[in-house]
Structure formats: C-alpha cells, structure tokens
C-alpha cells in the first residue's frame, strides 16, 4: 500500500524541528520545577525540568534544560546572591529559554536567563498556602493555646547534630551561668530539604508515643541557612503536626530574618537556637529570682519578729537578773547577820578584850549562886587559864 510507505525518521524530526523553530522563534519565559541538576566537566549545566499536578505528586510534563557554561558562569552567582543558594532539586524556577530541537536528541530548552525573585516568591506562595489551609482547618492556633509549663525540665529536642546552631544551643543550655540542669533527649531529624517534614513528624510521633518517657516541651530548632534550605519549615504536613501536638512546641528556625509557618503555629517561637536556650534558662532564672525575693522577705519578717521578741525577752532577762541579784543580796545579808551574831556571842572574843570567863565543872558561870565556898573554879584568860577555889561569895543585894 503506497500510503503505508512512510517517511524517514530524519524527515519527521526535521519537520518537527522546522515547526518548532517557527512556533518559538524567540526566547520565552517558562515556569518549571527542577527535578535533577548536574554540571559536567566542561561547565555546562544540565537540568531536568518538570511540572507536577496540584498535589505535587504526579508528573505532568517533563523537558530537558541546558545552560551553556558561558551563561552559567554569570547566572550562577547572580542566582546565588539573590536566593542564597544554587539551583537544586525541588526548586521552582522561572527561566528564559530558547526551544531547541535536535534530530538526534529531541527537544531541549536552552536557558539564557533566570528570574531568582520567582523562586523566592514561590517559597512565599507556599508559605501563604500553608497558613491559609491551617487557618481554614482551625489548626493554626491549637498549639499556641496550650498552657505553658512554668519550668520545662524534661525537654525533647528535634534537630540534627550536624545542623547549624545545634552545638551553640547545647553549649548555651548546658553551660548556663546559673548552673541549671535540664533533662534533654534528642530526636534526630534532617533539618533541611524535603526529608525534613517527614523526619520532624517521625520525631513528634516518637515523642508522643511515650516510650521515651514523658516530656514537658518539644524544641524544634536549627541555625540559619539558605531560604530554600529552610522552606521545608513552611510545609503543611509538618506544620499541621506541630499545631496539633499535645505538648507545647518551641521553635527557633534560622536567623533573625527568617520566619516560618512552624514558628507561627508553635507555642513559643524565638529567632535563633541560642535565643531558645536563653528562653528556657530565663524561665528558671526568673523563678529563681522570685524564690530569692520570697526567701528574703521571709527572712526579713522573721528578723523583725525576732527583734521584737528579743526586746521583750531582754526586758524579761533584765527583770530576772534584778530579782536574782536582790535575792542574792538578801542571802548574803542573812549570812553576814548570822556571822555578826556568832561573833558577838563568842565569849572568846570577849576574853581577847581583857574579860575573863569562869567555869565550874566545865559549865560557864553566870551567877554567884552556882558555886559554894570551897568549890574549884577555872578562870579563862586570853593566854591561858587559872585554877582557883571559892573563898567567899558576895551576892549583890538587888540581884535576886
């Protein structure tokens, strides 16, 4: 059959090439996602460009892109300067291409220019979509309305030991000036790129499972990075998991200028990992200061009370002392009086003064009627005694 003779493949390709060149005589701007990127030894950059469906899962279009080395040499630093990074997988880009068709290799897009602000805008768009969806679903404020523990002690960390800022955070928390200690457990997760969302969700699940113990708070953090490195923190799946998490989540992603959806849905968000450590330490420092203040007040009022009691007590002591001294004085006088009485009634004291005592049969005489003539008596003097005999008794008339 003559109609079935066909044309050569080369003719077909030539025909296609002509049509394509006619259809796209000038360069045009094209939006696409990068699905692979390599730079070969001679400095040319080869890309696979794709379009995906609305869910970002199924490929709907695919084409090859080439940036010749002479173009790449200027585009690369330009793009990097604006977005903070190189072209990479998953990135949405806006490129100016010349459609090229080769009989041997088929279609390729020769890239002459790139619009980095589009890439930034895509990240922003994604962020806005995530925010809107979380708000529409009523998730946005779920974590932010959880009550904050006054003193978070058992702390689950989601980060990566290799992530920027991880070392700073640990160092800052462990070596705080007050010497506070915290029980931290790291649940490692990638902290950049596409794997982040899944990793963070897995870590959250592990924390929530209870098999690693109970926790007071979850800290999600990493240091600064490029905009698209951190774009994963706008991911809807990750953010909805954070928002619905039953424990308060504290987030610190990136640098001063970075603010992500995960920061918005987290219970507490601070700028940097170091600031996050400070936040925890400050909570303790404040409580510590409050306790100090209470202790001071208590001590002060005790001292006041004690001072009052003390002055009362001093009064009592003075009174007691006084009473005691009075009593002692009385006792001393009593003794002195007895001593005095003893002295004055001691006949030997009289003898010393020149008086003498007369004894009869060892009995002191105080009346002449106690002796009769001829009785022996003893006269006592200060330096001895005299044995005598009664010769005569003269009794005083009026002495009874």
């Amino acid at each position: 059959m003559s109609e079935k003779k066909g044309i050569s493949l080369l003719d077909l390709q030539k025909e296609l090439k002509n049509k394509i060149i006619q259809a796209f005589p000038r360069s045009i701007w094209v939006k696409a996602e990068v699905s692979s990127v390599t730079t070969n030894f001679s400095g040319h950059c080869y890309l696979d460009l794709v379009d995906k469906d609305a869910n970002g899962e199924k490929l709907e279009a695919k084409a090859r892109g080439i940036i010749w080395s002479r173009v790449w040499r200027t585009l690369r630093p330009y793009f990097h300067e604006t977005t903070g990074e190189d072209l990479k997988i998953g990135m949405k880009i806006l490129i100016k291409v010349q459609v090229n068709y080769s009989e041997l290799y088929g279609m390729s897009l020769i890239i002459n220019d790139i619009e980095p602000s589009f890439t930034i805008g895509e990240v922003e768009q994604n962020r806005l979509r995530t925010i809107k969806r979380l708000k529409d679903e009523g998730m946005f404020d779920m974590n932010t309305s959880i009550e904050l523990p006054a003193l978070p002690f058992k702390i689950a960390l989601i980060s990566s030991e290799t992530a920027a800022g991880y070392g700073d955070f640990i160092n800052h928390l462990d070596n705080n000036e007050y010497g506070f200690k915290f029980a931290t457990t790291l649940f490692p997760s990638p902290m950049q790129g596409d794997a982040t969302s899944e990793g963070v969700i897995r870590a959250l699940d592990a924390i929530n499972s209870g098999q690693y113990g109970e926790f007071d708070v979850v800290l999600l953090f990493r240091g600064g990075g490029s905009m698209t490195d951190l774009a994963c923190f706008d991911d809807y799946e990750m953010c909805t998991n954070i928002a619905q998490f039953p424990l308060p989540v504290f987030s610190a992603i990136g640098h001063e200028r970075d603010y992500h959806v995960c920061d918005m849905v987290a219970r507490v968000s601070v700028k940097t990992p170091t600031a996050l450590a400070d936040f925890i330490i400050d909570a303790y420092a404040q409580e510590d200061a409050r306790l100090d203040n209470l202790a001071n007040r208590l001590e002060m009022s005790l001292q006041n009370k004690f001072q009052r009691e003390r002055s009362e007590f001093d009064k009592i002591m003075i009174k007691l002392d006084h009473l005691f001294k009075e009593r002692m004085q009385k006792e001393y006088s009593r003794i002195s009086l007895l001593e005095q009485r003893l002295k004055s009634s001691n006949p030997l004291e009289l003898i010393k003064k020149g008086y003498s005592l007369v004894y009869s049969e060892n009995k002191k005489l105080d009346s002449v009627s106690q002796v009769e003539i001829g009785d022996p008596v003893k006269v006592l003097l200060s330096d001895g005694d005299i044995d005598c005999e009664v010769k005569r008794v003269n009794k005083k008339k009026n002495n009874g």
Partner: protein
Amino acid sequence: MDKKKKSYEEAMEELEKFVTKVEESEESLKEMTEDIQKAVELIKYCREELRKNEENIHNIITFVK
C-alpha cells in the same frame, strides 16, 4: 561537813541552829569552840554556794544573749 553535799537551805538551817546555840551559851567551852568552828565553815560553804549560783546565772544569761 557531811559526806553528802548539803543544799544551801539545809546548810543555812544548820547555821541558824549553831548560832542560836552559841548565843544561848548553855554548852561547855569545848562544845562551843567546836560549834563556832562548824558555824564558820557553814558560813564559808553558804557563801561559796551563793557565789556558784551567781556564776551559773551569769553564764546562762550570757549564753542566752
């Protein structure tokens, strides 16, 4: 002095007795001399007891203050 330590009150009571006895001068010279000696010892003892009390109280007050 008795072997067992006298209280201050007991010593004072005894002292009173000795002094009264000496004052009544009913006893022999020997008895009187002995009584006076005992009375003087009791005076010493009672004064010493009072001094000890003072010291104790002083110590207590110093400690409490």
